């Protein structure tokens, strides 16, 4: 095989190989938009229950991603979950911001939502969010719903029972 042809083919191979890496980085991994705002500051929020929140989950405000969950650990004195949030440096939040854990979709991943307050003092690096709202647990919600349903139908219970029993009695 001619040396020039080999050189050409190897050149093509290396070029498309590197192109594939670039494709993975830019199109699949979305490198550019992550690199833009990788720098940021850390704040802490304490939750009674963090639910299914995972590290690297998004932090959103008004639906816009403004940061990532850095780490989650348990305070063994108060038994609260301490969630460290990494907020991109171009976003500043008032000191009385409320942090809440929501689920995207019915079974989607959980994320931290920041609802900005009206304070003029902004959160700094290493500051703590005072007001939080824990994750909603589907099981609790369902059982609450069932209990309230049962209570609602408790007064007309005799009639409901009466409606059910005729089918059973004969």
């Amino acid at each position, binding site marked *: *095989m001619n*040396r020039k042809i*080999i*050189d050409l*083919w*190897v050149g*093509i*191979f*290396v070029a*498309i*190989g*590197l192109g*594939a*890496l670039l*494709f*993975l*980085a830019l*199109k*699949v*991994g*979305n*490198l550019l*938009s*992550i*690199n833009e705002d990788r720098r940021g500051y850390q704040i802490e929020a304490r939750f009674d229950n963090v639910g299914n929140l995972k590290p*690297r989950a*998004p932090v959103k405000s008004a639906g816009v*991603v403004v940061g990532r969950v850095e780490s989650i650990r348990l305070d063994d004195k108060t038994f609260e979950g301490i969630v460290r949030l990494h907020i991109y440096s171009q976003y500043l939040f008032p000191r009385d911001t409320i942090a809440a854990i929501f689920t995207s979709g019915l*079974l989607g991943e959980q994320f931290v939502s920041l609802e900005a307050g009206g304070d003029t003092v902004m959160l700094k690096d290493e500051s703590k969010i005072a007001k939080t709202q824990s994750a909603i647990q589907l099981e609790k919600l369902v059982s609450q719903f069932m209990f309230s349903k049962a209570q609602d139908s408790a007064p007309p219970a005799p009639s409901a029972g009466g409606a059910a029993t005729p089918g059973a009695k004969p």
Partner: protein
Amino acid sequence: MSMLARLLRRLGRASIGAIERLGFVTRFYFAILRQSGTSVVRPQLVVKEIYQAGVLSLIIVMMSGLFIGMVLALQGYETLARFGATESMGVLVALSLVRELGPVVAALLFASRAGSAITAEIGLMKTTEQLAAMEVMAVDPIARVVAPRFWGGVISLPLLAALFSMLGVYGGYLVGVQLIGIDGGSFWGQMQASVDWRYDIMNGVIKSIVFAFAVSLIAVFEGYDAKPTAEGVSAATTRTVVTSALTILALDFVLTVFMFRGGIN
């Protein structure tokens, strides 16, 4: 009693043999690194091996990537549709390809397509005493024959793995968006939101680099170590494929444990 002693002796001999072989591989590896100067001074040697190992493996690797991506999308749709989460198909296809299937399957294909060829070539050179002839002419066969093939493999495989992943993602796009009709925006959007450049893609690239070193080393070593007979070369070629496959899968498990521990901390 003598039975037991004989059994134990055989076990001991096998263990010592395995350790000796491991030591031989390690010394061989360092010999390759020491003799790599020639490959740097004469890059044409390595370029020729990249052509043999990389360019000629392009078709099989790219076709496999495309088809595996398409199958992933079809199978993923079956399962995701049950949970009404078909929009996550982009995430499923991209993560499984970039983290696992790309590096592993590309390395397995590379071992059977290029690794076996390298072993057979070097083994036959040894059988026909070309390596010995080189030594007579004061040409180090490790520098002239082994090291360029080793580096050719090391450079080729990560590029092949990246191509495999890219075509797999494209295959998933073809089946998911064009054939099944998932929304293209959510396919790419969810993928970009969940795939992290450093955590997912870089770890996949690191995996494929580790596999490249392992497979290339096994291929050149088995060729160099082959018995100089026709049966010896054929046995060495078989060993290359078998050992490479097992090594890739074992290394993949170890690397995955370190890289993606999931919930285990």
